[in-house]
């Protein structure tokens, strides 16, 4: 079944088109890559899908509903979660608190229950705590739980950000350069993790990545973006041999 369908999406900044007539389709449980030279508009596409930017034109149909232009928190509540290219953790808070904030979406008790410390608050907090620990264990961050997020090494910060995104229980996870700054070993582990997440949580995943080994290794279909437009789409091997793609990447230098 179709999970996300983007039709003729457009966005321009100060007269310059960042994204032009962009189309994309993601089925449930699919792993899609979005690649392209620097400045091709990939992150803009992500920002449009997650509501950080409002589209100028076009539709973003998620589970049969146009979510284009909705505020980010609504889009999150509908089941899309993301990470950021330049990690955006809550830097002064602990690892545990970072994940708990993501769990707020499904907070199991009411505001009065919190203010007056009703039983449901204690029960709910216990649930939240347990679930947060489950996520941290899954990402092997359990031992860091009381540490301040910004004090973590880079790779762990990336993992924490993915854990935090998953804690919102998305059906579509969007990863913006998850392997940036990782060594080959870490990248390999990440590939493994991405596959596992997809299978375990029945997720669709859309990712931007410059590391071709990761994209080619893990994605089932790939979209190539240049100057805000899709120039190619297909299976990894098709993309690898596509003339326009090669031109686009070579042309980047010119």
């Amino acid at each position, binding site marked *: 079944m179709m999970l996300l369908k983007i039709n003729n999406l457009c966005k321009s900044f100060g007269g310059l088109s960042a994204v032009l007539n962009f189309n994309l389709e993601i089925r449930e449980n699919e792993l899609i890559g979005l690649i392209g030279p620097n400045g091709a508009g990939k*992150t803009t596409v992500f*920002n449009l899908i997650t509501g*950080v930017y409002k589209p100028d034109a076009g539709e973003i149909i998620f589970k049969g509903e146009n979510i284009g232009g909705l505020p980010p928190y609504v889009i999150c509540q509908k089941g899309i979660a993301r990470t*950021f290219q330049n990690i955006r953790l809550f830097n002064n808070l602990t690892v545990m608190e970072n994940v708990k904030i993501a769990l707020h979406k499904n907070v199991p008790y009411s505001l009065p229950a919190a203010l007056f410390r009703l039983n449901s608050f204690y029960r709910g907090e216990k649930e939240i705590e347990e679930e947060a620990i489950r996520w941290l264990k899954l990402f092997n961050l359990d031992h860091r739980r009381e540490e301040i997020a910004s004090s973590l090494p880079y790779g762990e910060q990336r993992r924490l950000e993915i854990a935090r995104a998953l804690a919102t229980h998305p059906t579509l996870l969007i990863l913006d350069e998850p392997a940036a700054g990782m060594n080959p070993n870490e990248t390999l582990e990440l590939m493994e993790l991405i596959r596992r997440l997809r299978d375990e949580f029945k997720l669709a995943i859309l990712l931007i990545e410059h590391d071709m080994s990761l994209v080619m290794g893990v994605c089932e279909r790939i979209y190539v973006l240049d100057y805000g437009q899709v120039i190619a789409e297909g299976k990894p091997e098709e993309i690898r041999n596509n003339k326009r793609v090669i031109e686009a990447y070579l042309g980047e230098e010119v």
Partner: protein
Amino acid sequence: MLELMQQIVNGLSLGAIYALIALGYTMVYGIIKLINFAHGDVMMVGAYVGFFSVSMLGTNIVVAMIFAMLACALLGVIIEKVAYKPLRRATRIAALITAIGVSLFLEYTTIFFLTPQQRIFPQGTFPVQDYSLAGISVSNKDIFIFISAILLMVILQFIVKNTKTGKAMRAVSEDKDAAVLMGINVDNTISVTFAIGSALAAAAGVMIGVYYNTINPLMGILPGLKAFVAAVLGGIGIIPGAMVGGFILGILETLVSGYGNSLYRDAVAFGILILILLIKPTGIFGKNTGEKV
């Protein structure tokens, strides 16, 4: 119609005063992102220096203004070195509280040494000439203060945009660490910023003192606040914005008093300001620089 013209003239001359103070405010803000709440009080000190220069040394008003500007430039640099520099890496709100402290310190040290009573500029410090143009009364001091505000804005804009110091200022404003790497002496640049900002405040102080005849140790609070509002209205950190903000505020207040109800003047003026901000959340000239994600 005649009355409206008169009110607009009134508004422009009141606005020029706000603009004059707002210029220094916005410049310091633009470079080091500090809301210098002591700016109005530096203005007060400038007014006092000017006053003593005229009344005790018997200088003319131009010399008095130069004295005041020099004294306040020095004062501004000292304030920056002593009170703000240690907080350069701290949160902005910590610096804001320090600025409130400096403001109180200047006010009450002045009261301690010079009593809280107002001082009066000697008659004839500025030979006043009233003109009546088609029924609209204007005095030469209105014109003087109006031209000064515009002139100072142009000079300031020129300094910031076109001189080497100005480029250093803008570099510091963008990124202090990068500026250091580019070989810019950040400390000196900030000192110069404060010196210019404080000298501007002093000039405004002397002009206001002469304009209204009287000065007192708490004279900086209200105009300081209004100037801050004017600077925010224009888009804080933007030099032409401060001037436009000042004029808008002046005209707004005048029109509320003239055609609305003066008892509600500040409420209506603030109400309109908030409305403008809701429409233009970063002030009239402010660019809505959305955070890069």
